[in-house]
């Protein structure tokens, strides 16, 4: 290489190049790491600090250090905190399962090439690229019980008008529907690419052996697709747990009269911006962060186990 070719008097340029090459790992990653560190470290310390105090009304006024009291309060709170955990898990879990199943179906549907596939693939991408705040507003209008189109539509089929977002029992499911509408396409596209990359031989062999369509997919295709499925779930799980724009646009702070749409993210928002209880809001955020990291770890472990 350059170093060996040069004379005893190694030029400074070559010296520099050698140094750059030896430390390339760090030179290439340092700017990105520093940027993330710079933007994340202060908020993280700040949040932990606040979570150990009774900060309320304003973050700058005198506050008392109260240790882990906020966390103890939260872990004993069966009125707001645990239901919010439950809703977060339900919203993400149910959403992910439906999205995975629908996406799998959609991917299999679109797998074989057909005329007009460019148009269809573009069309199903639209929900994904539409601005989430705008999407939330749009669905709110559609689901208004008295003026929205949803009830007009189901009445065409003789189904009585529903409360949708305004019925505490249906709110979360309606929101899951919106989530499914917006994110199934992305998962379907990931799975489509996964389908394109798996070898065709095993499937053909199964066909020759007389396996039915269902058998072929359950025993051959889907197992081969597992890495793509897990990758799609991981990608989606983080964002799904953190869903905020749509919940906020449709139900506002507090998640409705019975807190029916209050997930952990909304709860943290409510405590912080609605109640000005910054201490306990920070504690919620930390527990929330732990939950997300736990979910990421779970999916990663499951995908490793699934790959074996």
């Amino acid at each position, binding site marked *: 290489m350059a170093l060996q070719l040069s004379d005893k008097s190694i030029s400074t340029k070559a010296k520099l190049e050698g140094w750059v090459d030896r430390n390339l790992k760090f030179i290439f990653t340092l700017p990105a790491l520093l940027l993330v560190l710079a933007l994340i*470290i*202060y908020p993280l*310390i*700040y949040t932990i*600090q606040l979570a150990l105090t009774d900060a*309320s*009304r*304003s*973050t*700058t*006024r005198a506050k008392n250090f109260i240790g882990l009291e906020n966390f103890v309060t939260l872990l004993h709170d069966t009125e707001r905190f645990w239901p919010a955990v439950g809703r977060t898990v339900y919203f993400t879990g149910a959403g992910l399962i439906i999205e995975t199943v629908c996406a799998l179906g959609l991917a299999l549907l679109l797998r074989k090439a057909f005329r007009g596939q460019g148009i269809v693939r573009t069309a199903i991408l639209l929900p994904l690229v539409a601005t989430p705040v705008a999407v939330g507003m749009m669905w709110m209008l559609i689901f*208004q*019980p*008295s*003026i929205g189109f949803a009830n007009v539509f189901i009445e065409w089929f003789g189904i009585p*008008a529903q*409360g949708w*977002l*305004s*019925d*505490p029992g249906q709110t979360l499911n309606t929101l899951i529907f919106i989530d499914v509408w917006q994110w199934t396409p992305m998962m379907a596209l990931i799975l489509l690419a996964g389908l394109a990359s798996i070898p065709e031989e095993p499937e053909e062999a199964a066909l020759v052996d007389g396996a039915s369509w269902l058998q072929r997919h359950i025993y051959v295709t889907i197992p081969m697709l597992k890495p793509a499925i897990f990758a799609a779930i991981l990608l989606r799980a983080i964002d799904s747990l953190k869903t905020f724009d749509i919940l906020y646009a449709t139900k*506002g*702070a*507090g998640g*409705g*009269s*019975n807190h029916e749409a209050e997930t952990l993210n909304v709860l943290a928002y409510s405590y*912080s*911006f*609605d*109640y*000005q*209880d*910054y201490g306990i809001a920070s504690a919620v955020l930390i527990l929330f962060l732990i939950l997300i990291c736990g979910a990421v770890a779970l999916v990663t472990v499951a995908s490793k186990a699934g790959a074996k």
Partner: protein
Amino acid sequence: MKEITRRQSLIKIAAAATCSMFLLAGCSGNTDGGDAGSIEGTKINVNLAAGGWTNTVEKLLPEFESKTGVKVSLNVLGTEQLDNQYQVKLNSRSEDLDVMVYRPSQSTKLFADNGWLEDISDRVSGDEAWKWTDFSESSRAATTVDAHAFGVPLMTERDIIFYNKEMFAAKGIAIPKTMDELEAVAKALTDTTSGTYGVVMRGKANAAVTSFSSFLYSFGADWITKDGDSGIGTAEAAAAYQYYGDLVRNYGPPGATSLDGTEARGIFQQGKAAMYIDADSGAGLIEDATQSSVAGKVGYAAFPAGPAGAKPYDVTSWAAGVSAYSKNKDASWEFIKWATSSEVLNAAMSDQSSPSPRISSWADSAVTANYPEELVKIFSTYSSTAVGHDRPQVIQVNKARDIVGAPITVALEGGDVTAAAKQASNSFTEFLKTDK
């Protein structure tokens, strides 16, 4: 970790020092007296909520800018986004906020307690021509804490009955004057088969607190007693919750627990409800034919009398104040003075149906010519009976609203109201201990 924390507190001290330096500079600037000449060329940032009065200010702003030489940047936001910005910016002691338009019943105490709003007592009383005393007494009280003025009112509103004249005429029904009559009328005008309802009101717990408050007062209770204790544990309060819940559940549209003011009004605007009981400031939209299919068919009536008489709220919904961290307090005050002058408030009232806090606006026939006559009459009758707040007057208002609003949800869903009210009262008592 420790190292970083220490450095961080150093940053904070430095920042605090910088801020207090600016504060001192600001204060010493004040003692010179607000000489209009010195503010020429300053730039101020004004945060305000989208809607009536803001439209007028936007339209007339060039007048102010050319008169004073102050450059004004208007930052128009939704109500909740406005609150969010205040919290983020003021918690960071930001200087890039000069004039704050805010909801006094929601925020005056919190902002004053946090030291976020500048005390403008001397400024409001210092200008005879502008005339602080022209603002109604209750509106001045709404922006004042312990005899210190923190803001200037710019819009007021009262709880009234909006009614659909056609529906009332079709059945020959008279306007209700008492709670009993209100229920009877609501019952008579409800026809679920055709999807028309006797009455529509707010039902979303937090939002419904304001429209419920008039019922609470008229039944003889209040959020907080004179001794500073919870007032919602009384039999009167339970009766009010029960009445409100029954009325909306039996004679209102389904899905009531999710209706906020906007959605409730939407139903009335489609001609699907005979009555809508809410703030009179909504009249402008209800009479706008591009928004409402009942425009021109709407009558206005005073709030009905309960066991304790008719005690509707009459509140100051918006006010403008100066940020305590502003470096341009003189220019900010000049802007507020202009934007709350008779000229601007009268224009807002006649062009945008934004009810003025100035008594003189209501007596000026040029202003009221464009404003529903019945509302002017209601305004004059309310001044003696009405209550000056529509939610608990505490520091952490939203937290209190969630507590006292919970029994509304129970009542709307037909649950055990007495137990819910008692439970809410206990929580509220606990809350009041901390809210000092």
